[in-house]
C-alpha cells in the first residue's frame, strides 16, 4: 500500500474536546505512504462519507483509515463507503480514538499523543492489508426457537407464518411459560390465559412448527445458516404418539400430594401430570423422583389404567440432531427469592425479612396464582399459613432489584406495574381489605401505564408509602412490617396479614450454560448480551442467533412480544436469501510450506481443518497438508498461533499486519 488516506473525525466534540484532531491528521499525513489526511466534524455523517469517497477517487487511494469511534460502532459504515468508492472494503480500517482515547483521558497532550500513536499503528495495518472477497455459504431455511413462553411462541408463529419450518424446544412438559401463570395482565386487566392459550394451540397445530417439549439443548455446532443442534428429549415415560390425553392416569395416580410448580408450590398434583389443564401438549409426564413405581418398583397404576398403553416406564432420554439456519433464544426469567443463598454466591438473601421462613410473605407470582381463577384457591385471596382472607396486605417493591448490596443493581422494570395491578385485584376480591405499597419510585413509562397506577391509588384506594421496609417479623399470626415514610419523615409500622414481595427478575437457571453452548455472551447477571444496545437490540454478537424476551433483560409482555416479532423478522431477513455472504476472516494454508504436523487441526474448535493429499502428476503422494474449510472456519486464528512454521494464516489478522503494527509502536 502506498496511497493511504487518513480521515480523523471530531465526533462533534466527543473526540476533539480532548484530542487535537488537526494535529493528529497532520501527523498522519507525514507517515510515509499516507497520500492524504484530513479531519472532519462527523465522518459517519453523509457529508463525511462523501468526503471519504471523493478523496478515494481524487487521490487514488488504495487504503483508508478512519480515526473515529470504536470499529464495533462504525466499521461497517465506512467499509461500505469505501466499497462504494471502488475500494475493497477490507482495505478500510478504523482507529479507535474515541472509546479508547478521548473518552478515557483528560490530558489533552497525552490524549493527542496517544491518538497519533493509534493512527500510526493502524496505518501499518492498512498498509499490510489485503483485498478479501466475501465467502458465500448456503442457508438452511429452518429456525430453532429455544423456550416456549410468550416470546418463543410469538417468534415461532411469526417465522412459521412466513412459510419457514421452525423447531420449538421447551424445557418444561408444556409450553406457556410464565405468562400462562398470570391471572390478569396490566394495563388492561384482561385474562392472561384467555389470550395465551389460543396461541399455544396455534403452535401445536401449525404445520410448519415441530414442537419438542420436555427437551433441552445438548450441543450446538456450526455457524450462521448452518447450525447443527443436538436436542435432548428427556424421558417423559409416556409415549406422545399413543397418548390421547384422556387424563385417566392422573386421576388414578395414588400419589397426589406433590406441590405443583405451576402454582408456585401452593397447589397439588399427582406424580403423573400435566402442569395445568390447558397444557400443550396435553400429554402427561411422570415425575420420576416422586413416582412410587420409579422409587420402589411397586405401583404401575397409570400403566394399568391407560387404554392406549402409552405409559412406558422403560423410556430413555433420546437425542436428535436438528439442522437449522438461525436460532432464537427466548429462555425467559425466574424470580429472585429472599432465601438464604449458598456461601460464595454473588447474590444475597434477605435475612431482615426472615430468609423466606415466614409463610405469609409470598412473591408476586404466588399472588398471581392466588388471584387466578384456575389457581389453588380458585381465585380467592387466601393466605398460605391458615387459609384466612387477609385484611391488611403489604406489598413491597424493589425486593432484590436496585439493591447492589444484595448483588442486583438493575431495575426489574415490571414490578411497579404488576404491584399496582395486584392492589387492584386484591381490592376487587377483598372489598374491606386494605392494600399498602412500600415503594421508592413508581416507574410507569408505557402506554396507559401511569394512568393505570394512578387508578390503583385514586380509585382502588391503595395506600402508597414512599419508603422501604427495614425488617419484618412474625408476631402471633401477624407480620410486623417496620418501614418508613420518607415524605412524612417517620417510621411506619403495619401489622399485616399477608406480605407480597415484588422480587427481582433474574435470568433462568442455567442461562450461562446455554450461552456457553451457543457461544453467545452474557452479562454478570447472566442476561444475554445483545450486539448493540440501540442498533442491534435483538441480535447476538454471534451471527445467526437472536434474542427475544426477558432472557436479554427484564421485560413486560408487550415489549417481549415486540422483541419476539423483531427477532422473527431478523430470521426471515436471513432466510430471504439462498446464499449467505460471510466475513472472509478465515484461515488459509500455505501448501508449499505446510509439512502436515496438523497441530492446527488439533486446536481447531470448529473442526474446520481437514487433511489434504498433495500428489504429483503421476498420482504419487507428495505430502499431506492441512486444508481449511472456509465455510466452517470461525476465524479465531488459534491455528496460526499454534503453527510452528506459520504456514496457516488468518486473513485480516496476518502476521505481517500484526508485526508491522508492533514495529510501529
Amino acid at each position, binding site marked *: 500500500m502506498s496511497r493511504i488516506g487518513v480521515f480523523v473525525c471530531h465526533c462533534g466534540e466527543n473526540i476533539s474536546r480532548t484530542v487535537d484532531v488537526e494535529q493528529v491528521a497532520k501527523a498522519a499525513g507525514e507517515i510515509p505512504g499516507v497520500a492524504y489526511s484530513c479531519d472532519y466534524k462527523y465522518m459517519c455523517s453523509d457529508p463525511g462519507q462523501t468526503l471519504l469517497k471523493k478523496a478515494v477517487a481524487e487521490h487514488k487511494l488504495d487504503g483508508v483509515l478512519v480515526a473515529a469511534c*470504536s470499529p464495533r460502532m462504525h466499521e461497517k459504515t465506512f467499509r461500505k463507503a469505501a466499497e462504494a468508492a471502488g475500494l475493497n472494503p477490507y482495505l478500510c480500517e478504523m482507529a479507535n480514538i474515541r472509546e479508547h482515547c478521548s473518552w478515557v483521558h483528560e*490530558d489533552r497532550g497525552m490524549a493527542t499523543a496517544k491518538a497519533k500513536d493509534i493512527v500510526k499503528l493502524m496505518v501499518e495495518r492498512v498498509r499490510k492489508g489485503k483485498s478479501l472477497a466475501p465467502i458465500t455459504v448456503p442457508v438452511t431455511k429452518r429456525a430453532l426457537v429455544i423456550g416456549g413462553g410468550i416470546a418463543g411462541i410469538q417468534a415461532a408463529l411469526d417465522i412459521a407464518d412466513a412459510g419457514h419450518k421452525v423447531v420449538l424446544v421447551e424445557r418444561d412438559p408444556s409450553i406457556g411459560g410464565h405468562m400462562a401463570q398470570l391471572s390478569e395482565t396490566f394495563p388492561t386487566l384482561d385474562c392472561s390465559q384467555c389470550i395465551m392459550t389460543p396461541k399455544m394451540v396455534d403452535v401445536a397445530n401449525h404445520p410448519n412448527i415441530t414442537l419438542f417439549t420436555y427437551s433441552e439443548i445438548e450441543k450446538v455446532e456450526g455457524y450462521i445458516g448452518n447450525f447443527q443442534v443436538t436436542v435432548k428429549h428427556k424421558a417423559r415415560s409416556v409415549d406422545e404418539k399413543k397418548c390421547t390425553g384422556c387424563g385417566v392416569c392422573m386421576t388414578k395416580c395414588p400419589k397426589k400430594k406433590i406441590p405443583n410448580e405451576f402454582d408456585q408450590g401452593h397447589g397439588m398434583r399427582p406424580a403423573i401430570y400435566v402442569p395445568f389443564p390447558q397444557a400443550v401438549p396435553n400429554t402427561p409426564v411422570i415425575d420420576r423422583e416422586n413416582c412410587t413405581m420409579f422409587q420402589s418398583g411397586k405401583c404401575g397404576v397409570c400403566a394399568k389404567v391407560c387404554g392406549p398403553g402409552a405409559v412406558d416406564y422403560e423410556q430413555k432420554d433420546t437425542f436428535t440432531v436438528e439442522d437449522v439456519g438461525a436460532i432464537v433464544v427466548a429462555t425467559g426469567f425466574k424470580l429472585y427469592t429472599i432465601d438464604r443463598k449458598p456461601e460464595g454466591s454473588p447474590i444475597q438473601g434477605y435475612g431482615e425479612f426472615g430468609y423466606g421462613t415466614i409463610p405469609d410473605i409470598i412473591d408476586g407470582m404466588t399472588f398471581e396464582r392466588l388471584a387466578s381463577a384456575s389457581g389453588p384457591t380458585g381465585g380467592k385471596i387466601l393466605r398460605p399459613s391458615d387459609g384466612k382472607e387477609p385484611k391488611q396486605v403489604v406489598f413491597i417493591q424493589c425486593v432484590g432489584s436496585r439493591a447492589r448490596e444484595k448483588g442486583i443493581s438493575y431495575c426489574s422494570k415490571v414490578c411497579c406495574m404488576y404491584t399496582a395491578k395486584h392492589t387492584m385485584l386484591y381490592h376487587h376480591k377483598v372489598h374491606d381489605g386494605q392494600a399498602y405499597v412500600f415503594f421508592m419510585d413508581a416507574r410507569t413509562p408505557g402506554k396507559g401505564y401511569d394512568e393505570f397506577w394512578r387508578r390503583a391509588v385514586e380509585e382502588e384506594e391503595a395506600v402508597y408509602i414512599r419508603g422501604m421496609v427495614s425488617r419484618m417479623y412474625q408476631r402471633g399470626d401477624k407480620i410486623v412490617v417496620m418501614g418508613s415514610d420518607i415524605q412524612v419523615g417517620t417510621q411506619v409500622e403495619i401489622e399485616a396479614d399477608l406480605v407480597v414481595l415484588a422480587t427481582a427478575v433474574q435470568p433462568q437457571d442455567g442461562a450461562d450454560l446455554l450461552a*456457553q453452548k451457543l457461544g453467545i*455472551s452474557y452479562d454478570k447477571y447472566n442476561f444475554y448480551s445483545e450486539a448493540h444496545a440501540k442498533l442491534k437490540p435483538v441480535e447476538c454478537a454471534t451471527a445467526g442467533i437472536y434474542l427475544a424476551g426477558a432472557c436479554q433483560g427484564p421485560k413486560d409482555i408487550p415489549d417481549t412480544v415486540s422483541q419476539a416479532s423483531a427477532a422473527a423478522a431478523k430470521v426471515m431477513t436471513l432466510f430471504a436469501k439462498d446464499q449467505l455472504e460471510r466475513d472472509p476472516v478465515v484461515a488459509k494454508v500455505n501448501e508449499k510450506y505446510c509439512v502436515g504436523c496438523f497441530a492446527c487441526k488439533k486446536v481447531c474448535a470448529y473442526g474446520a481443518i481437514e487433511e489434504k493429499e498433495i500428489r504429483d502428476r503421476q498420482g504419487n503422494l507428495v505430502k499431506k497438508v492441512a486444508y481449511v474449510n472456509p465455510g466452517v472456519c470461525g476465524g*479465531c486464528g488459534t491455528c*496460526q498461533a499454534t503453527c510452528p512454521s506459520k504456514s496457516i494464516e488468518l486473513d485480516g489478522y496476518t502476521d505481517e499486519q*500484526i508485526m508491522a503494527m*508492533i514495529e510501529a*509502536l
Partner: protein
Amino acid sequence: MHAETKQHDFEPKIVAFVCTWCTYAGADLAGTSRMQYPSNVRVLKFPCTGRIDPVFILRAFQKGADGVLVSGCHPGDCHYMAGNFHARRRFAAFRALLSFVGVDLNRLQFSWVSAAEGGKWVDVVTELTERVRTMGPMPEFKELEHEEQWSTFAGASADKVLNSPELKEAYDSIG
C-alpha cells in the same frame, strides 16, 4: 471522575494485546462510561487470545514496550469456543520460559476482561501502568537491540573493533 492529571518522570510504554469480543469491547465500555485511566496503553486488537503468538510479546518488548498486557474472554466465554483455553496453556508455558531467562514477570500481565467489565479493564490497565512506572523502563531487550556481537568480546568495545586501523585499511583497500 475528575482525576487530576499528575506529571510523572517516567511514562512507561504499555502494549495490550486484546481479544475483540471481550476485552476490546470492555475497553469500549470503559470509554462509553467515561472512566479514566492512564493513557500509556496502546491496544492491538485480535480476533481471539488464541491468535496471539508469544513472538508478538517478545517483539513488543524488543520494540520498547515496558509492560505488556494480554487480555481476553473469561474461560467458557470464548466467542470461538476454546481459543482462550489454548492461549491460557500457551502463555503459562511462555511465562515460565521468560522467567527462566530472567525477564521480570511483573511486566507481563494476563487478564480476563469481559465485554461487561469496563471497570475491570480500567483497574487492570491502571495497575499494570502504575506498577511498571515504579519499576522504571525495561532495559533488557532494549539493550540487546543496540548491542553488536563483538561488543561482548573481552576488553574491546564494538567501536574499537570496528575502527581498528587494520579494519580501516582493509575497507579502504576494497575501494
